[in-house]
């Protein structure tokens, strides 16, 4: 589905980002897998020629720009940006750590917008492109005990819709994915017990697998979604029904 396409994926060290990088490569894309660390898996992935790991902090604008210029130099284009990197927190309003909150906004919102700004300038020249932003169901619905995280994901949704309006004239599509509860390794190891009751509230009765979210990324990255832009697509096992 992605033969000949060039993708930049952030947060590719683990979870949804890693699953998306693998799935994109399986579907023929050349993938630049970005994360601050944790990209050792690429060496054993079987896709060493088509997944190129780049370790950087996406809050470091200089490093991000260098990476985009490198992709431009090596491939001549970027077809897909998947903004998957993100920080998450679970805090009641009265217990918000504002240093952590500022950092979360830097990663979840500011860096995401900067990546859209840079890559869309390349995409505009080729008059095509797909940008996929990882939001969350709590960005649209809110969540008790996740004010700061939901605020950052609400900003992702707003940024997605505004970018879609601004970039439509260049045939660049911008969509967001709003997962429910995802069974990443970290979630299963640390938080599953804490959220056991909430998992029972999911109509499908289980967490999403990162690979299931990656499948939606694949659809939005591919020409199968050619006429879709400015949308926030939920993938949550029915929890927001």
């Amino acid at each position: 589905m992605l033969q000949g396409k060039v993708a930049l994926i952030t947060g590719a060290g683990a979870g949804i980002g890693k699953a998306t990088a693998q799935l994109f490569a399986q579907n023929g894309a050349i993938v630049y897998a970005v994360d601050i660390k944790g990209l050792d898996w690429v060496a054993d992935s079987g896709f060493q020629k088509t997944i190129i790991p780049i370790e950087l902090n996406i809050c470091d604008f200089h490093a991000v720009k260098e990476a985009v210029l490198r992709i431009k130099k090596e491939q001549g284009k970027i077809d897909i940006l998947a903004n998957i990197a993100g920080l998450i927190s679970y805090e009641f309003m009265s217990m918000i750590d504002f240093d952590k909150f500022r950092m979360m906004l830097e990663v979840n919102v500011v860096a995401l917008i900067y990546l859209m700004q840079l890559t869309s300038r390349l995409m505009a020249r080729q008059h095509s492109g797909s940008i996929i932003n990882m939001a969350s169901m709590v960005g649209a619905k809110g969540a008790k005990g996740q004010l700061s995280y939901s605020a950052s994901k609400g900003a992702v949704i707003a940024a997605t819709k505004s970018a879609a309006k601004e970039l439509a004239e260049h045939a660049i599509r911008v969509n967001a994915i709003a997962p429910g509860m995802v069974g990443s390794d970290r979630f299963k190891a640390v938080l599953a017990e804490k959220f056991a009751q909430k998992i029972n509230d999911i109509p499908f009765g289980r967490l999403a697998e990162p690979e299931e979210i990656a499948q939606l990324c694949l659809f939005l990255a591919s020409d199968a979604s050619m006429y879709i832009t400015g949308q926030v697509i939920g993938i949550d096992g029915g929890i927001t029904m």
Partner: protein
Amino acid sequence: MNNLDKYNDIFAQVFGAKVEELGDSYSKENVSAWDSVHQLNIISLMEEIFDLMLDPEDIMACTSYNAGKEILAKNGIEL
């Protein structure tokens, strides 16, 4: 076509400007058509023709023919 010709051609493409019009006074203040959309078009062509990726501050600073020259010089493009 040398770099200066390429640079002048950007203004021909964006504003339909003739070479003899381009100079110190060719700026946002004096060219009524010079709005933010045209400014982005100038930047986009500069990036494409000279194989650059300009910083946001350069994009905002590109408000005249001369400013554009300075931005190119800063990025290693001799005119």
